[in-house]
């Protein structure tokens, strides 16, 4: 057990249980090490923010949580990551099943070049979550409502998803992820390509999603982390420097590096 790990154990003060538990995770890209010895518990029904300067490994670590890094041939991962107590890198685990449980929303909105309806229906269809058109319609509507997009698009569900505005596209991607019925939702800088109004909408949405999901959000905006998250983890040069309640991290950081970053001296 290293120091980070001991500290994080002390800080589990939230009433919710740990959804994802990572222990001593190391990630290498070829010869270079991107993540060093990270251990963290991510809680259920909580928004956790990963912050840190660019290149600190926060996105890399996020992508480890649903094995998206498997698609990069040179990437090698060591350590233990458990979802509800099951090792997600176990040989018996199918990354596809895992990703159905741990959904992901990306930095740039990436709607498929299909209709809005088909975008949202994509997940339920491939996972066979629904039977019949009526049930699918219901899931699509519910997901779009959860993503706060229903009122804007209900009259043009067959229009292409790529025709929406940037903020709408990102909410469509969130609706698409929600429709699959995930237990954890990973968001990789979901607002970096959006204007302030769209950002506000998505942030409001993230707060509401907390009721049903465990949300992990990577952001380079400290204000955003402060606004939407309950727990914050600060990454620096591939290390998890500090992890704790958001309020505590932003007011009384324990580590001098965290303080430097929050006060704008490194970044």
């Amino acid at each position: 057990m290293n120091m980070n790990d001991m500290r994080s154990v002390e800080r589990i003060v939230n009433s919710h249980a740990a959804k994802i538990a990572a222990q001593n995770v190391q990630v290498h890209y070829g010869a270079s090490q991107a993540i060093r010895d990270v251990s963290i518990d991510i809680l259920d029904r909580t928004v956790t923010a990963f912050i840190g300067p660019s290149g600190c490994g926060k996105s890399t670590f996020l992508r480890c949580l649903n094995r998206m890094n498997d698609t990069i041939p040179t990437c090698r991962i060591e350590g233990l990551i458990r979802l509800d107590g099951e090792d997600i890198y176990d040989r018996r685990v199918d990354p596809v099943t895992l990703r159905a449980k741990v959904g992901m929303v990306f930095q740039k909105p990436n709607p498929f070049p299909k209709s809005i309806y088909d975008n949202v229906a994509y997940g339920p269809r491939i996972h066979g979550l629904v039977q019949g058109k009526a049930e699918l319609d219901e899931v699509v509507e519910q997901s779009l409502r959860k993503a706060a997009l229903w009122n804007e698009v209900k009259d043009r569900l067959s229009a292409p998803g790529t025709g929406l505005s940037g903020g709408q596209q990102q909410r469509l991607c969130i609706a698409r992820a929600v429709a699959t019925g995930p237990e954890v939702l990973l968001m990789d800088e979901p607002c970096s390509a959006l204007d302030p109004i769209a950002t506000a909408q998505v942030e409001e949405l993230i707060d509401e999603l907390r009721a049903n999901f465990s949300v992990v959000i990577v952001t380079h905006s400290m204000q955003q982390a402060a606004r939407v998250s309950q727990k914050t983890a600060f990454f620096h040069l591939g290390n998890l420097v500090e992890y704790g309640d958001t309020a505590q991290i932003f007011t009384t950081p324990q580590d001098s590096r965290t303080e430097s970053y929050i006060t704008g001296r490194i970044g």
Partner: protein
Amino acid sequence: MPVHILCLILLAIGLAGYFLGRRRALQVAGGNAKLLHSLPAYHGWHVALMATVPALLLLALWLIVQPIYLENRVTGHLPPEMAATPADVSLAMSDIRRLAAGLETAVDAGVLTEEEVRDPAADPAALAATLKPLGVALGTTPTPQVLAAAREYRTTAARLSVARAAAVLAVALIGLIAALRMARVDLWARNRVERAVLGLLILASSVAILTTIGIVWSMLSESLRFFQHYPMADFFFGLTWSPNFKGGSELGFLPLLWGTMYITVIALAVAVPLGLYAAIYLAEYADPRLRAWIKPMIEVIAGIPTVVYGLFALITVGPFLRDYFAQPLGLGNSGSSVLNAGIVIGILNVPFISSLADDIINAVPQSLRDGSLGLGATRSETIRKVVLPAALPGIMGAVLMAASRAIGETMIVVMGAGAAAKLSLNPLEAMTTMTVKIVGQLTGDTDFAAPETLVAFALGMTLFAITLALNVLAVWIVRKYREQYE
């Protein structure tokens, strides 16, 4: 004087001009090269270009105009009945040229003297007999008029050749001297040379346009001649193809179009699945080391000349299809067949489709794949439901280009499809295509006055139009597709 000797002399003049120009420039600068606006070498180039370029242009022009002038002049000697139609003239002209060349050979070989050739009283039959052992085969004994015309042709050609050499060399020398006289300290030789070079560059890039004009002109003019002999509607809508050089041919285009299209469809049915799945595997599944081996190996297929595939169709695939499919199924016993040519063209087009599709699939943004994988889709679901629909327009473009190549393919169909024009559904039967008939009608003995020969130009024109249209459409679709992701 032969053209190549003339060219060598021009080259020598140019070389001399370069050195003279350099010396002259240094001379006017009093030996101090720093006084010159341009380096002495540019003065040298200036003189060399002034000496050779106008002379070469004159030579090129002369080479194009001389045959036309000669023909006009010589046909004046022909009796009206031999020059009634353009076809008659071209027939008579080829006799005249052959005879004139024969006379030239005879004089060179010392069989005939210059006087004997010029003798107006010479007997054409005796002359033909003299020429025969020299390998000059004349179809029939030339008439006195043809003989006279051939004499005229020969002497005029000889005179023109001397005049050509004189004119070209004169222009070269005038250029040389004028350029030398222009040499001054403040002559902007570099700028003048660079302008000339730029002109040459523009000329070179215009060759592409000249080629297109040449293609369109050559095929259009001969096609129009064909349509004077043969009604256009009968050609484009005729259901029978039975050329007969004795006359009474039926030259219906539809059986050829049917054969071409049938083969193209089979070729695409082979090439598209193979090429597309290969591209998907290489782009989405293969690890980079495997890809580095497999991709060049597939490209090898495209690097092998089509005549090799033709032989493969002729001696391997064709007999195989005949022995194991056509005969057991009672569908014919021909080694040549639509299926044979189609399959082999299909294989040839696999690398074409796979490399185009590979590019197109790689152009689909990774973010779409991540989006799909991030939702828990398998790779194949991602490819089938996200990547391929996104790449569809581009792939359609690639398929159209492959279709255009299959339609224009010649050697494989010449050797593997057969020569009988048929409208049949049986893929194991021999059928024929536009390209086969172009080769058939234009090789061997051809008579450029007969519709049976000229029809090849109409076929060529149609082929050109079809392939061009398909390509323009394909390029347009692919461009639209690329813009979507830029």
